């Protein structure tokens, strides 16, 4: 991963430079006009968040059953990313909602779901911070259950109420508007790569912290 890190930084940086230019040049959608352009980053953050949730769930399972430290670091790093991308997505969604729905906040299915998922992973971070010794294990349980409950949150909130653009928008977008579809995919790829990048950096930080702790302990002995 160390060798790949710098090239990856360059690639992601290039993608994030290219994306706004491509978005600026993309066609206007006839009903939403300018505000529709938020969508490219908005959708991409949710893709990144989904990836982070999956990583957190899987890493938590591995940590709980195998006890490998690196998976614990992966889990905490991805939980933090879920919160970061979740909050970013909520902000961009709120900006869009102000224009499209006329309100900053709407108890719509996807908004509620995103809020709940952010809450779950904030809970994960809280138990790590305030759980005292051995809290990594408790957090791992929260990671597993949080990841497992996400599909249910998705489904239940969907049934509860929906005024959000349906997921069918995504399905028909490819046929109706191939240019935009490609751009959405490009932005999503950029965000997912950014997730990988941040994850690696954060895991490295965690590894160094743990080494420092060990050195302190060795010094005291």
């Amino acid at each position: 991963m160390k060798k790949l890190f710098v090239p990856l930084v360059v690639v992601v940086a290039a993608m994030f430079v290219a994306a706004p230019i491509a978005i600026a040049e993309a066609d206007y959608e006839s009903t939403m006009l300018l505000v529709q352009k938020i969508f490219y980053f908005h959708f991409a953050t949710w893709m990144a968040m989904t990836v982070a949730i999956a990583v957190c769930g899987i890493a938590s399972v591995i940590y709980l059953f195998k006890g490998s430290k690196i998976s614990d670091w992966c889990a905490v790093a991805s939980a933090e990313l879920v919160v970061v991308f979740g909050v970013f997505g909520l902000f961009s969604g709120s900006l869009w909602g102000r224009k499209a729905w006329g309100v900053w906040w709407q108890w719509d299915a996807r908004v509620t779901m995103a809020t709940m998922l952010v809450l779950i992973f904030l809970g994960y971070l809280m138990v790590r911070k305030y759980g005292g010794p051995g809290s990594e294990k408790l957090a791992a349980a929260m990671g597993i259950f949080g990841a497992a409950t996400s599909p249910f949150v998705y489904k239940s909130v969907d049934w509860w109420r929906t005024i959000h653009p349906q997921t069918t928008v995504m399905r028909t977008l490819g046929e109706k508007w191939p240019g935009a579809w490609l751009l959405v995919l490009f932005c999503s790829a950029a965000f997912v790569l950014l997730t990988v990048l941040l994850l690696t950096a954060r895991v490295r930080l965690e590894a160094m912290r743990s080494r420092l702790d060990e050195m302190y302990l060795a010094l005291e002995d």
Partner: protein
Amino acid sequence: MRPGFVEVALLVLKKDLAIEFKSREIVYTTLFFAVACVMIFSFAFVMEEGVPVQGAAAGILWIAVAFSGTLALGRTFERERYGETLRALLLAPASRPAIYAGKLLGMILLMAATEVILTPMVAFFFHAPFFARPLLLAALLGLGTIGFASVGTLFAAMLVRTRTRDVLLPILLYPVTIPVIIAGVRGTAALLQSPPEEPVATLWIGLLTAFDVVFVTLALWTFEPLMTE
């Protein structure tokens, strides 16, 4: 010979029920708390003419169930911690998942006992026709309780070791059990319509069943590594 899974679960359940029958501490305090909850809601949801807000009953019932359930969860494990019996329980030559199952059964029974009194009370105070479809309501409450208690029992058990367990339990439990609360409230609200919307309620019962299966399985699977120090 090691006792079987069902045997151990029933033994743990019997132990918990015996303690509870002696003191009746959790049942009484939980029930009183639930009643107090409903009273507080009545100040918020009963309008000036003395008529409750339309459709408030379903939400009030489920919030009272969830809040009082959290209280009961905290207490059952606090009792184990206070008597320092949890370690003994875990040291017993029995399978850990069976111990969890016993604890879970006890929890479900406790919550059910509260619900048996709480549901008619909310129906009475808020003029809610809860008993138009008693079987569907029972299914919603039963499955919802299993889902809530399955996650709650595991979390309460693992939090026993921490100093901040009282605050951490609701912080962890509520977000994870959001689907249960949504399904319970929406399903019950569908039953309160006139005429009751049975297909909607069955839809939510389906979701609750899937949730229960997934979470009871997950909890049985993770209880062992979580309780090992």
